[in-house]
């Protein structure tokens, strides 16, 4: 999905047929998607309500998944504990902003501090475990996730235990712009968070694009393909992997910050457990490893299924009065797990490289095994 922006304007202005539009969409899917998403809240009234909040959550998971994609997709290190970094980001955001603590440094400053801190924690986990190979590294990240979850739960004096930390103030709390109280606006209308998350997502996508093309991004891929060969070419595998760890953690931390702010609570530590890590990992693989649009699509399908589609389908069945006896066989949620599982199995069966495979990766992986 490498954009070819050079000849676009001319093409667009000369050919205004369907083919032109189609090509435009294909080449600049990102711009089209961004415009559609930016306009949507103004056109779709539902986005001003519950749906808006749900879509915001989707954006946040997209950011999280893009962070994971750095480790799993680009660098080829399986990471089963991304939710821990998500949680650390969320808790740092809360600690730096909730009234319970003296810091209360505001959303933006808290985000910067948390992102840097999560990157640091990522480095601290990465440094001693780098020599682990493949699935051993995976299990270390899994273990780290469990340790973080239990610690968050037990250090009540700091994290509030299962109660979590709340209320996390909305961004711009107390800031007035032309008579509009920003904090209040964020609290009342989910569309403010929608735009904030969309902005952050767009920023992360742009950053990831540039990283992909950069020296570091290419080094990640080189290490994934063949660590020995990469080292022989003068790439320091240790440093490259560490940077992937840090980048991945930092982006996950950013997602965590947004998550806590948008929910106005850290939620309880169980929100950052292994299930969540697995869900995000599935989204990245389902969408296509190392592919930005794939990752976003994967999240939209998997997380969207659970947070948007399933509740909607359940209440639709109720309102249609299809299931008056309340039998779980007739409710959507009764089948949710199976549908979910079947989707994973079928996509992997028919598109093992993912729905939108990264071109480079798909080619290589086939080569590997033939």
């Amino acid at each position, binding site marked *: 999905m490498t954009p070819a922006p050079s000849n676009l304007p001319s093409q667009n202005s000369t050919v205004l047929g369907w083919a032109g539009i189609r090509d435009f969409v294909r080449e600049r899917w990102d711009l089209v998607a961004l415009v559609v998403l930016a306009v949507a809240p103004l056109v779709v009234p539902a986005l001003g309500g519950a749906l808006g909040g749900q879509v915001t959550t989707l954006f946040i998971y997209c950011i999280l998944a893009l962070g994971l994609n750095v480790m*799993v997709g680009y660098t080829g290190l*399986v990471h089963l504990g991304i939710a821990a970094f998500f949680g650390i980001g969320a808790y740092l955001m809360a600690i730096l902003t909730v009234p319970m603590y003296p810091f209360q440094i505001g959303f933006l400053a808290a985000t910067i501090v948390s992102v840097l801190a999560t990157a640091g924690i990522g480095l601290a986990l990465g440094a*001693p*475990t780098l*020599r*682990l*190979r493949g*699935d*051993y590294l*995976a*299990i*270390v990240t*899994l*273990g*780290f996730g*469990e*340790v973080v*979850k*239990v*610690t968050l*739960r*037990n250090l009540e004096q700091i994290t509030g235990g299962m109660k979590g930390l709340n209320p996390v103030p909305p961004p711009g709390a107390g800031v007035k712009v032309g008579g509009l109280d920003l904090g209040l606006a964020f609290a009342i209308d989910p569309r403010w968070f929608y735009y904030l998350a969309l902005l952050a997502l767009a920023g992360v996508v742009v950053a990831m694009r540039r990283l992909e093309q950069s020296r570091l991004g290419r080094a990640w891929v080189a290490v994934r393909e063949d*660590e*020995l*060969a990469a080292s022989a070419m003068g790439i320091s595998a240790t440093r490259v992997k560490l940077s992937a760890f840090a980048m991945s953690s930092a982006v996950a931390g950013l997602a965590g910050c947004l998550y806590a702010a948008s929910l106005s609570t850290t939620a309880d530590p169980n929100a950052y457990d*292994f*299930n969540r890590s*697995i869900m995000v*990992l*599935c989204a990245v*693989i*389902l969408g296509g*490893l190392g592919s930005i649009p794939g990752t976003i699509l994967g999240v939209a399908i998997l997380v969207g299924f659970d947070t948007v589609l399933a509740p909607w389908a359940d209440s639709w069945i109720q309102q249609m009065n299809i299931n008056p006896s309340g039998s*779980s*066989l007739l409710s959507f949620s*009764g*089948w*949710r*797990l*199976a549908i*979910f*599982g*079947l*989707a*994973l*199995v079928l*996509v*992997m*069966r028919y598109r*093992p*490289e993912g729905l939108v495979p990264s071109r480079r*990766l798909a080619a290589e*992986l*086939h080569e590997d*095994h*033939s």
Partner: protein
Amino acid sequence: MSAQFFLQQCLIGLTNGALVALVALGYTMVYGIIGLINFAHGDLIMLGACLALSLVTAFGLATAGPTATWVGIAVLIVACGLFCGTLNVCVDRIVYKPLRNAPKLAPLVSAIGVSFIFMNIGLFWLGPSDRSFPELLPSTNLLPGEGLQFTWKDLLVLVVVVPLMLGLSLLVQTTRLGRAMRAVSQDPTAAALVGVDVDRVIAATFFIGGALGGAASVIYGLYINTIGFQMGFQNGLYAFTAAVLGGIGSIPGAVVGGLVIGLVRSLSSAYVGERWTGAIVFAILIVILVFRPEGLLGRRTKEKV
């Protein structure tokens, strides 16, 4: 606290660990042969436990006499072993086999998918809440005195698990099938070249791993006495951790890993506090792996260029 208390905790830890080890064998075997972390294994065991419960209820084992109970347990183990083994082979055929040449992580996601499907089946089978598995064995203490508690249940775990593990080691080390398994695990292409039917060996591995899981499911029901559609997850998490801790792909490693996890769990519950158990188990895991990156008994793999 007293030495007796320490011994008691060790006993509990070893018994628990033996059960974890039995489940871990299923992970390690499948991993050893096709390099797949079979996430669905825990949920396969859950389905085995569902079947066990249904059979116990159908045949009224809870009210049977002692001889009938022991025979019944043996039959249960065989039935659930066959069921889980067969199911595992079917899943491999339908889901994993088409993915043999796919990217490495594709079967992993499929396995997660299968685990969700199994959970949904379990949900319909058992209902949403935990179900009690009847106590088939008398809870009389087999050890003299008040202090140490070691009941028929604990004995059962060891009586079933130890022979199964020894049998499996023998099978892998001495039989033709075992040799074929080891060959496939080292290099499937080379194994195929020397005339090993790779697909059959893989199917056999899935069957044996599943059958061990089936046996584990019965023991689990009898020992823990509660089953529920979500039990597979936690079960799998610890067992998989045990497999990696011991050195994934290594059969004695899985056993050692299981025992270590069992011991760590019970000792940390006793001396640190139940609430920290989860963290301590995984923290120790991380520390061990940092110092022994290939697991306790794993072989150090040379990097191939």
